[in-house]
């Protein structure tokens, strides 16, 4: 079902002793760069995403805000989130619009949490992709994600999210949102190129008075393959609660980290303990020499 790929660098629930096929991992890391300062909030990217990926989410209702639909869903993989920010320094109202969706982390919390072998993979180019036929619907990826992105479908109880148009990227095209964006706010290319481009944009924004403009490429998750240029990079929370220092949570780290070896050791120790005890002490039988006057009576 999944496209044959021999450049998978991470595979969910797979032992390091039996790695996924990764003989070809010389690919350049790719990245999508979303320049929030250029975005006009037209939602063309949302439409392009639905069109290319053949997603037909239910037509929702107006909730009194510009966000439409209201939230990401199994059939809405990208969403413009609108925030109104009153800048006390400049005295201006700023309309901060962020295109939300999977960030394609270098260290993906969804992949770490996933218990189903091969249900989540990461390609050498950095794209994190769900292999839905292996998905068991446990929703652990939802809890593992530091950005609250994956969504379980009510139709088939499987998790969905942005694929970074892996099917397009694999054949040398850019993701559909990038292709469609009318203002050029979304760029796509190698991660190094996108970092260079972001540097230029940040310098320009600095020159226009946005002293705290910067690139959002959070290192707590090893960097991401979807990055933002923000006018207020020092306050990413302004952009509809974009986390300042996203990390895989301690509970998930503990659960998938130290708890496993400790549990394995405890199982071995317990089973070995019973073996040593039984062989050492012998079965607890009733003393046959003890006269049982009760039963003879």
């Amino acid at each position, binding site marked *: 079902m999944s496209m044959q790929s021999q450049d998978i660098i991470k595979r969910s629930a797979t032992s390091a002793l039996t790695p996924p096929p990764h003989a070809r991992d010389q690919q350049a890391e790719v990245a999508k760069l979303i320049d929030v300062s250029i975005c006009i909030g037209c939602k063309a990217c949302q439409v392009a995403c639905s069109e290319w990926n053949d997603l037909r989410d239910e037509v929702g209702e107006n909730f009194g805000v510009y966000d439409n639909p209201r939230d990401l869903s199994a059939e809405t993989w990208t969403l413009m989130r609108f925030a109104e920010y009153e800048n006390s320094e400049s005295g201006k109202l700023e309309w901060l619009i962020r295109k939300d969706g999977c960030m394609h982390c270098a260290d993906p919390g969804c992949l770490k949490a996933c218990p189903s072998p091969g249900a989540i993979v990461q390609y050498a180019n950095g794209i994190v992709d769900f292999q839905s036929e292996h998905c068991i619907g446990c929703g652990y990826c939802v809890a593992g994600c530091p950005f609250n992105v994956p969504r379980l479908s009510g139709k088939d109880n499987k998790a969905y999210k942005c694929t970074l148009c892996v099917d397009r990227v694999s054949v040398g095209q850019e993701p559909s949102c990038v292709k469609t964006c009318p203002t050029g706010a979304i760029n796509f290319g190698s991660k190094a190129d996108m970092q260079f481009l972001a540097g230029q944009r940040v310098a320009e924004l600095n020159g226009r008075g946005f002293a705290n403009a910067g690139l959002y490429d959070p290192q707590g998750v090893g960097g991401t393959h979807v990055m933002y240029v923000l006018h207020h990079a020092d306050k990413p929370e302004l952009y509809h609660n974009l986390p300042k220092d996203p990390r895989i949570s301690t509970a998930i780290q503990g659960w998938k980290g130290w708890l496993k070896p400790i549990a394995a050791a405890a199982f071995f120790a317990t089973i070995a303990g019973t073996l040593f005890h039984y062989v050492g002490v012998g079965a607890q039988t009733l003393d046959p020499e003890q006269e*049982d006057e009760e039963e003879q009576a």
Partner: protein
Amino acid sequence: MKRKNAILRTPYTVRMCHWLMVVCFFFVAMSGLSWFFPSLSWLNSLLGGPQLARILHPFMGVLIFLFLAYLFMRLVRHNLPEPGDSKWFAEIGQVLKGDHNEELDTGKYNAGQKVLFWGIMGLISLLLISGVLIWRPYFAPLFSIPTIRIGLFLHALAGILLMLLVIGHIYLAFWVKGSVDAMSSGYVSRKWARTHHPRWYRQVTGKKDAP
């Protein structure tokens, strides 16, 4: 089957409840292990494959809780802590060697069995609560993601501790010959009762000071 001179240790309903629970626990534990240790992911084939196992695991888990709730009601009065229990812990080395210290004068369940009882009851409660927090698609959407993360951690931890307790429980039943009869036929010999649970033996036989 009633045996001459044998003593009923476990009534039919309690035995049946125990064994129905064992069947459920086997499948729930195996599927749980299949997700905790990816190298054991083949274990979820026992419940019909990963997707089906994921659906069935929580329902069977709730069944285990219900069976245990019944066992709790039937057995709790025999498992209340007593002053003599501390002595059992102090003498645990002797107990594990299989030496019978008459002074311990154990009742229906010894202090170690009481630890097992309360351990199982505590852990199954924790498993139920944490399990509801992470149960998709039904209940998990009602809780915040940080809460679900803690639920995931606690569910795994409690599941492992419960399995360790159950391994110990199975071993001890195997080690002390005659114990399995107490849960299969329900009957134990008078000698068994007098040796392992003398105070309980006196209570059921009405003997004041039997040897």
